[in-house]
């Protein structure tokens, strides 16, 4: 299935600029991001369960950076939300964001597979 531009989880033009116009390389990186999301989410869930706000903050910060690198705006925004809650210590607000992050991760993985190279 080919995603339409409105479904695009990232600013494709911007992301291609970052990879020097290399679509194959962008696809590899997006696949990496798609793989990283469930791992980071699992790490954040564990940290929430043991009330480790600092790990919540740093894991979310790293995920935000990875997303921003590929101009994945929505994922970066959601990650920032988790990072801020980690910093504030309001860990009870994190779970709903994690669910959205997981969906966004799946969307990125699908987009990566559909990206013409």
């Amino acid at each position, binding site marked *: 299935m080919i995603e339409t531009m409105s479904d695009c989880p990232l600013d494709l033009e911007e992301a291609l600029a970052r*990879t*020097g116009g290399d679509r194959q390389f962008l696809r*590899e990186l997006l696949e990496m*991001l798609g793989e*990283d999301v469930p791992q980071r989410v699992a790490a954040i869930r564990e940290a929430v369960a043991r009330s480790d706000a600092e790990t919540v903050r740093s894991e979310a910060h790293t995920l935000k*950076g990875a997303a*921003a690198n*590929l101009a994945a705006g929505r994922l970066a925004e959601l990650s920032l939300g988790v990072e801020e809650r980690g910093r504030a210590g309001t860990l009870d607000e994190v779970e709903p964001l994690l669910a959205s992050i997981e969906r966004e991760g799946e969307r990125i993985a699908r987009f990566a597979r559909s990206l013409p190279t």
Partner: protein
Amino acid sequence: MRILIAEDERISRELLRRALENIRHEVIAVTDGLEAWNHIVDESADIRLVIADWMMPGLDGIELTRRIRSAGFRHYVYVIMLTSRGQRQDVIDGLSAGADDYVIKPFDPGELFFRVRCGLRIVDLEEQLAARNRELERMAMVDGLTAIPNRRAFDDDLGRRILECQRYRRPFALLMIDIDQFKNYNDTLGHAAGDSALRRIALVLKRALRGTDDVYRYGGEEFACILPETDEDGAMLVAERLRAAVEAEKIPHPGTAPGVVTVSVGVTVHRPQHPDSPSWIVENADRALYRAKRAGRNRISGPQQATCTGGFPVLK
């Protein structure tokens, strides 16, 4: 020369690697600060520019930078830190820890290119400066005219020999060599001829010495030799060989009796029980040299007030 990337987040790491490889740099990419440090201290890795993320497991960017700055490497290591937008305090902390520059993530490949180029320019300038300093250091120890070690090198080496003599309880010999009637040579034949004679004599002395001995230009027409592990008998043999070698070179000299350039040599031997003062040792050799001069030049004089010429010791 390689660039080291230290970044635990793999997408950012791969983007950096690609951006740098695209501009033809050799890159090593690692995932934590300790691994980065291991590469940086490994001289064969030849890392001159480091791009380090600020938050890393093991050793963070600040600590890594502090280590680099306090290590005193032979070459300058240029550090660019990677930080996220809005982390102003990170930038301040990083620069105060000794980072040279910073790049904000997500980075723009074009901007990175120029920042890296700027860093490499500094690394290059530092290298040129270091090479020039090494050359100046070498030149500071070499006599410009004769290309043998100079007075400064002599002072350094003599000090070291005295320490070795005390520590290992072994003697060494010092020879002071003076060209006979050299002022007269210069006055008669000109300074260009004088310079040329000095060069030739330096060469003759060097050739006549053993591999472990050193010859220095001590001053105007004076040379000095340090002979490690050498006692009176050995030193007198070497001194006589030097004297004979200069005479055999047959550099014409209208002002001396044999009609050629000759030298007088004063010999002293330093032992562990002697005063450890360089000037005391040099004065002993000078006194011996003076005796050789007074006895008629073109001869050698040893520490026991013995003089000899042509290989025949003569007691005074």
